[in-house]
């Protein structure tokens, strides 16, 4: 007989950490993006995905609103907006 011991990646469902956001969330303007990928690299959650310029998106299911992507973008193409406002 066995108890909870192991979990496989496909079976686990990450908690909806997007619910942690209280104030702001990132908005991707997708105007001046140069595709440097720094937002995707720095996101601690790994919830920013994209390949080409002006095509990076954030998965708000998991975004905790830390704002690192906004600060790292060299073209200021990401802004933090208030929750619920957009």
């Amino acid at each position, binding site marked *: *007989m066995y*108890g909870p*011991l*192991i*979990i*496989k*990646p496909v079976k686990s469902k990450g908690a909806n950490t997007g619910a942690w956001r209280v104030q702001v969330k990132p908005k991707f303007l997708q105007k001046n993006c140069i595709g440097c990928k720094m937002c995707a690299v720095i996101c601690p959650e790994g919830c920013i995905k994209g390949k080409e310029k002006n095509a990076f998106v954030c998965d708000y299911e998991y975004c905790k609103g830390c704002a690192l992507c906004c600060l790292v973008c060299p073209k200021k193409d990401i802004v933090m907006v208030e929750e619920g406002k957009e």
Partner: protein
Amino acid sequence: MKEFLEGSRAVAEAVKLCKPAVISAYPITPQTHIVEELAAMVAGGELNSQFVNVESEHSAASVVLGAEATGVRAFTATSSQGLFYMAEVIFNIAGLRMPIVMTCANRAISAPINIWNDQQDSISLRDAGWIQLYAQDVQESADFHLIGYRIAEDKNIMLPVMVCMDGFILTHGMESVDIPEQAKVDKFLPPYKALYKLDTSDPMSIGLLVGPDHYLETRFALQETLKDVLDLLPKISQEFRNAFGRDYKDCLVEEYCIKDAEKVIVAMGSVCGTIKEVVDALRKKGKKVGLLRIISYRPFPYARIYDALKNVKRVAILDKAVSLGGYAPIAVDIKAAFSGKKKGPEVISSFVAGLGGRDITVESIKEVFSKLTQKEVNGEFIDLKPELLKESYGE
């Protein structure tokens, strides 16, 4: 094939037959010869195994844990202080259900430091969730490793096994031993197939953080599995008898002249050889005495012991360990077997002997039988030297 071998060598030969993939151990008397023999076998090419010389017992146990987690068979050996140093990992291994087999060469505990035999070390870790088998002689020490891997790796069990052999008495004693043939061992013990393992083709996470909502069930599962071991050991023992000819009956206890005995000693390990000699001698004089030898200390065979001793008038338990501040360990379990039951011995007396390697002689055993009277005795030390109790310190 029968050879005249040192106990450690016999164990090394038995482990070699089991073909472990990874061996890792740290030196500690009196286990050293086992690991040295294995190192020589690996270096000489007789045994295809990865031998990892670690910097502590904690790491030795961690190395075999990592190896088993990767899906291969692993082995380690230790004693007293080393066992306590790896105690954290011992509990971890049982909790992660890794079927490791480990030899514990029973040795006394510091302080004061003492390298000679008693069973305090392995008995102190009885709560860890390991199966504990106690060997009476060198042949059993070797055979229990084969039985150990067989039961550990059973798909319904997956629990680690500690084969306990008395340090120096069995590890350094020489006896005539039958070392089985590899082909027969391969049939009895098939290659290890892990139920879950670290494999890049099927990734999984092992050793998680489990909160109050989930932890209780893991301990319940361990407890129920150890109960299943009591049913499985007799079956495996029978398979062992069919394969190799040696009969360990149910591999839980051994009854020696119990049937009509009025006085029985319960004991574990090599001291049982001496007790059997005394029983034979006293039986010749018409005394109705017997021995109940415990083989499987964990899981403890309560029902089996109840059946064996329920009609015996007086039972003496000879512990080679002491649970300081409480009743002696085996005595507690024996008394629990009869608690609340209608039948049982009139007297269950508990004796402590042999700590730190003090010889348990034929006279000591006779003294135990003679002290087994109507008056129940609790935790009496045999062969105590009162003159040593007068040490004084300071003012």
